[in-house]
Every structure is written in structure tokens, then in C-alpha cells.
């Protein structure tokens, strides 16, 4: 375990000392805190105006909320506010995916570029320890940041809406499971896929760009396909978590099996 945490500690030190990456680590939290707080504050006004105008999108949400058992005992306005907040939780899934994919893209090709890979592989560390260490280093800081950001967002939303509704708006169980479990599982899958590219890559920047081009659109397509079911069915959210856990396990085993020390050392010039 000590060896695994080493890579995480090193990554944290590197992030702390690299002021170039700070803006990236600030943009997402600001958005993820700002949007739900803004929504929670202004939702009643926006909903009232949209309903008055018979806005098609808002009418659709109103209809959806009316038939959802979760919102049976609340006013349509509160139900819609709660549903909109649940939908913006997607930002907290996107945050670890986007940030950890960048770290993961650098994870192995970066070691090659800095010429630190051979000294690392010359230590008694196993492939499994190395990859698990890299997984933790790429995934854990962004997941921790996601959780911290979510806590701030929840607090701000509840403070700004205090007294307006019978119960606090957040966290609802979808937020808890989505941000608590689905986000890290999703980040893990992205890191493991990206690390495999990173092991075979020769150019860190190209890997980061290729990863961004593949991961972000892929994520948006998945949300487009499954977003509705994941915000309306708690069972579906559980199933998504279980499926992702199985996928993560399979990806990690596959990464360990396909990690070729020899190839990495001898092909890289």
C-alpha cells in the first residue's frame, strides 16, 4: 500500500508546484459550484416564467416530474427544481473524467519523456503495483476534488434555498450515489483506458489531445443515451455502478496483462 501511495504523493507534489495546471483544476469546481447554486436560487423565477410562456422544454420536464414518485409530495416548482439540480450532477461526473484523463495521458509517456521510467522499472516494484500506483495518482486527486466541490455546492445550495422548501434540496440519493460511487468508477475506467494509450505512446501532448478528443465526446454521447434513465431510475444508477465496477476490474487486469516492460524500454528512444 505504501508503494501505491508513493505515486499519489509525488503527483500531489507535482500539482502543487506546477502553477500551470492550477487554472484547469479551478475551472471545473467553479462551474460545478456555480451552476447548481445559480439554478437553485433562480429556478422558481425561471420555472414560473417558462411555464407562463408554455415553454416546450419546461413543459416536458414538468410532465416528467409529475409522474416521478420521488416528487409526489412536493409542489411542481420544487419538484422541477429538484430534478434540474439532479440533472446538473452530470458536471460532477464530467469533472473527474476530464481532469483524470489528462493526468492519465501523461502517466506513462510522461515517465518515458522525463527518462524516469527505466529507473522506476529497475526497482523491485511489480507491474501491478506500478499501474495501481499510476491509477491512484491520476484518479484520486480529481475524485477528491470532485467530492470536495460537491460538498461546497451542496452547502451553498442548501444555504441559498434555506426556508424556501420543507426539506433541504441536497444531497438527494442520486447525488450521493452518482457523485459518491459513479464518478470515481467512471474516472477509473477513463484512467485505465488512457493509461493503456499512454504506455504505447511516444508524445505526451498528442496523447492528451487524442484522449480529450475521444473521452469528452464519448462521455457526452453516453450521457445523451443514458442521462434520462440515470436521473429518473435509482435502480438504473445502481446497475450502472455495478457494470462500471466490473468493467474497471476487467480493464485493470487487461492493463496489467498487456503492460510490456521490455517493449516500453526498447521501443522508446
Amino acid at each position, binding site marked *: 500500500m505504501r508503494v501505491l501511495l508513493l505515486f499519489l504523493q*509525488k503527483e500531489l507534489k*507535482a500539482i502543487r*508546484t506546477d502553477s500551470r495546471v492550477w487554472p484547469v483544476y479551478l475551472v471545473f469546481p467553479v462551474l460545478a459550484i456555480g451552476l447548481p447554486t445559480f439554478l437553485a436560487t433562480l429556478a422558481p423565477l425561471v420555472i414560473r416564467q417558462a411555464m407562463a410562456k408554455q415553454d416546450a422544454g419546461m413543459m416536458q420536464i414538468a410532465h416528467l416530474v409529475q409522474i416521478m414518485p420521488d416528487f409526489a409530495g412536493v409542489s411542481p416548482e420544487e419538484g422541477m427544481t429538484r430534478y434540474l439540480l439532479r440533472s446538473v450532477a452530470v458536471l460532477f461526473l464530467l469533472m473527474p473524467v476530464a481532469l483524470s484523463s489528462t493526468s492519465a495521458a501523461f502517466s506513462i509517456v510522461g515517465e518515458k519523456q*522525463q527518462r524516469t*521510467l*527505466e*529507473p522506476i522499472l*529497475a526497482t523491485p*516494484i*511489480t507491474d501491478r503495483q506500478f499501474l495501481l500506483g499510476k491509477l491512484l495518482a491520476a484518479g484520486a486527486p480529481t475524485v477528491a476534488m470532485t467530492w470536495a466541490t460537491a460538498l461546497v455546492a451542496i452547502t451553498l445550495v442548501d444555504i441559498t434555498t434555506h426556508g424556501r422548501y420543507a426539506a433541504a434540496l441536497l444531497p438527494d440519493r442520486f447525488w450521493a450515489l452518482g457523485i459518491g460511487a459513479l464518478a470515481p468508477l467512471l474516472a477509473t475506467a477513463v484512467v485505465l483506458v488512457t493509461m493503456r494509450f499512454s504506455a504505447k505512446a511516444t508524445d505526451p501532448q498528442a496523447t492528451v489531445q487524442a484522449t480529450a478528443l475521444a473521452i469528452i465526446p464519448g462521455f457526452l454521447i453516453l450521457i445523451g443515451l443514458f442521462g434520462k434513465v440515470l436521473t429518473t431510475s435509482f435502480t438504473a444508477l445502481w446497475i450502472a455502478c455495478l457494470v462500471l465496477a466490473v468493467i474497471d476490474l476487467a480493464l485493470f487486469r487487461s492493463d496489467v496483462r498487456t503492460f510490456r516492460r521490455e517493449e516500453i524500454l526498447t521501443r522508446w528512444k
Partner: protein
Amino acid sequence: MISAHGLSRSFDGRPAVEALTFHVPEGKLFALLGPNGAGKTTTVRMLLGLIGPTSGSAIVAGHVIGSDARASRAVRAACGLLTEAPGFYDRLSGWDNLFFFGRLYGMPDPLIRTRLTHYLRLMDLWDRRGEPVGGYSKGMKQRLAIIRALFHDPKVVFFDEPTSGLDPEAALAVRELILQLKSGGRTIVVCTHNLDEAERLADLVGILKGRLLACDTLERLRAGAGDGARVHVAVRAGAAQHARLLEGQPFAPHVEVTGETLRITVGDAAADVPRVVAALVRGGAEILEVRPETPSLESIYLHTLRGDH
């Protein structure tokens, strides 16, 4: 400590090194010489268990390389490696970089601190230990990499160009450190292009160019170099006349004269030099100095490589 038997490695069907057989006893320094692309790095990587041999075998620090993952880990734990390009995390300090590697070697933190304190002072990096490695000079990085190769106290150390990029004073300090390590009983393999350095440090010399063209002690390589030993005989006067005395003698097949010095090629130095001296004295030569010519490692190296063509 290191025994290789028929160690070979091919890449995509092309042999990088073939049938390497050598033995480096414990506490000896083996200098592996050879031109670029001769297979020095591939050999070191095989001996460290980083890459497997295509055929052949080797035992390093008591472990058979490539036999299983556990043995490979044991070899890596028992060895230290100085790579040709000393790679570090530029944003981390020298201390943090080494601490990271110390933990990867499984050293407890208090021991890492003690060893780092010792080696950073020894390598004159103590005052800069807290600074990011990105700001270090090439020589400082090289010294830091040497510490990384040593501070887990390995039985076998592989140095790839250990004094590359160092100023003469730092290079001397590194050479002295290497000699200290050797006298401390460590087995050392040095890959180098610096023949002068190899000549100063090595107990055994291997000349590699895909195959091991020569592998022996320096003395034996010298004895076997060229077409006979040479001796310089300085006389008070009449060198040309004395040279004529030696003409046609079987123990002195070739004589050159430079000023008052005769450069004489002999077949077997131990048997022929006394005969040469006796013949010259009989001829009335007043001998001032008899000095055997020692072939340099450079001449042995070039002779060996050219002989391979």
C-alpha cells in the same frame, strides 16, 4: 557475482548481442567497452532482469535472471542502476526525488534520511537538496543519479557512463567513489567510452560489439595485444650503430631508432629482453634505461575492434 553463459538477445530477428559468456567475481569492477550500438545497454538491461534474453542465461547476485518474476524482483532489489540519461522529476526537489526512489526500493524512511544525508554531503549536493531538480546542472543531475544507484546499498552496481557531463574535479570524485565502492566489496559494471577511466578503474575489461570480442584482465589483454611486446632502450651514444648489432637476431625481429633510443619489438618479453640487453652490452653500449612499452587500453581497444572487421 555475475555469470553470463551464452547470453543473447535479438530484436525483431536482428541480434543485438550474441553468446556473451563472462564471469565477474564479487568485489571486482568490470568495464564494458564498445562503440555506440554495440549492445552495452541491452546487456545491462538483461543482467538487471529488465528485458529477457532470447537465449542463454545469467546469474546475478545469486539469482537466475528471467527464471520467474520473483527472481527478477530479487535481482532488481540487489542491483543499482545509473542510466545513461539521468531522468528525474524536474518539479520535485533532489531530496524528494531520491526519497521517492528509496521508498520504491522498500527502504524504511529513517534509513532513507540517514543514507541521503550521507550521500548528498558526499556528492556535494546537500546545500541544493531542497531545490527543484529542473534547476540543477547536468553534472548535479548526474551526481544525483549516482546517489540513486547507490543509496539502497546494492551488491551489484551498473554504471552507464558514470562521469559523462561532469567537470574534471567531479569526475575524479566519482572515480574515487567507485573505487571506494569496489574496496567495500561491491561488484561493479561500468559501461563507458572513456578508455582512460576504464584503464584506471577496471579489474576486468570486456570489449563488446554484438559479441564479446575480448574479455580478460587488463594485464592479460596487454600481454596478448599486437604482434609482440616492445621495449625502449636508451643508450649514451651510438644508437644507430647498436641497432645494426641487433639486426638479424631472432630475439629482436624489429628495431627502430629515435635519437639515442632504440625501440625494439620482441616476441616474449620475459625471455627476449635480457638477451637484447646482453647483446647490447657485449657490443659496448652504455645503457641508461630499459623501459617496457605498455600498450594503452586505447590501442588494445582499437586493435581488437579493427581485428573484428
